[in-house]
């Protein structure tokens, strides 16, 4: 039986960053209530683990969906840069990383998964309609 197959490639990256969960429009008490220890004004950090999944046709000439020689520097460049807006929850980091990676030219970025600690992970999956 010949069935259509879908192939994806997932690569894992690591980066370390500090953050503080805080909304300026909240009072201190409200920040403390909503974000708890994460709103400590001095901040805290995590060793983030990032999984990036790309899908697309496997190029018969290379056997690859995407060449890691292209994907790795692209992710390094797009993700190692500082994060600007929004409360830096892992949810927002995850969505922001997707926003920065979706323009990868060689394959469709389908999924971004961020592990903030070994006990928390966050996943953003692009809808089929979202084009790379």
């Amino acid at each position, binding site marked *: 039986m010949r069935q259509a197959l879908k192939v994806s490639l997932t690569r894992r990256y690591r980066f370390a960053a500090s953050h503080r969960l805080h909304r300026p429009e909240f009072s201190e008490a409200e920040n403390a209530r909503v974000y708890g220890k994460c709103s400590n004004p001095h901040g805290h950090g995590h060793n983030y683990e990032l999984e990036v999944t790309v899908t697309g046709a*496997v190029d018969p*000439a290379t056997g690859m969906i995407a060449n890691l020689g292209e994907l790795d520097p692209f992710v390094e460049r797009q993700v190692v840069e500082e994060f600007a807006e929004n409360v830096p929850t892992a949810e927002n980091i995850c969505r922001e990383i997707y926003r920065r990676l979706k323009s990868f030219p060689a394959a469709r970025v389908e999924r971004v998964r961020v592990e903030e600690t070994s006990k928390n992970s966050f996943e953003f999956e692009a809808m089929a309609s979202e084009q790379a």
Partner: protein
Amino acid sequence: MIRVTRKIEFSAAHFYHNPDFSEAENRRVFGKCANTHGHGHNYTLEVTVAGEPDPATGMVLDLKELKDILQREVGDRMDHRHLNFEVPELAGRIPTCENIAVAIWKLLEPKITRGKLDRVRLYESPDLYADCTAAESTGGRG
């Protein structure tokens, strides 16, 4: 529906080389992986089968049976082999993680008679894996 996953490990050698490319092009596209003496990986294969548990046994399929299929179809074919030279299912294909995962899917799919092969996930290292699934099993997203 329940998904059942079994894991096996195998070690194999490979290199990436396209005979239609010049040597310089092979090196540019494949980097260190183009070294024709080859290099190796400890691969980890996770195979997921989906189905309803049989009320009589409580099992989607007997994991021992799945283990034997994985050993026969994948372990015996690929463990301590050179993937460029010794695995006919990969002949004419560059043995990337993507292509090996597809070859494993094609080997296993007809052998799974209880439940349905749902996903083949092949880790080349803890930081790199390929998934192969049936295109229609993506919940209507693809």
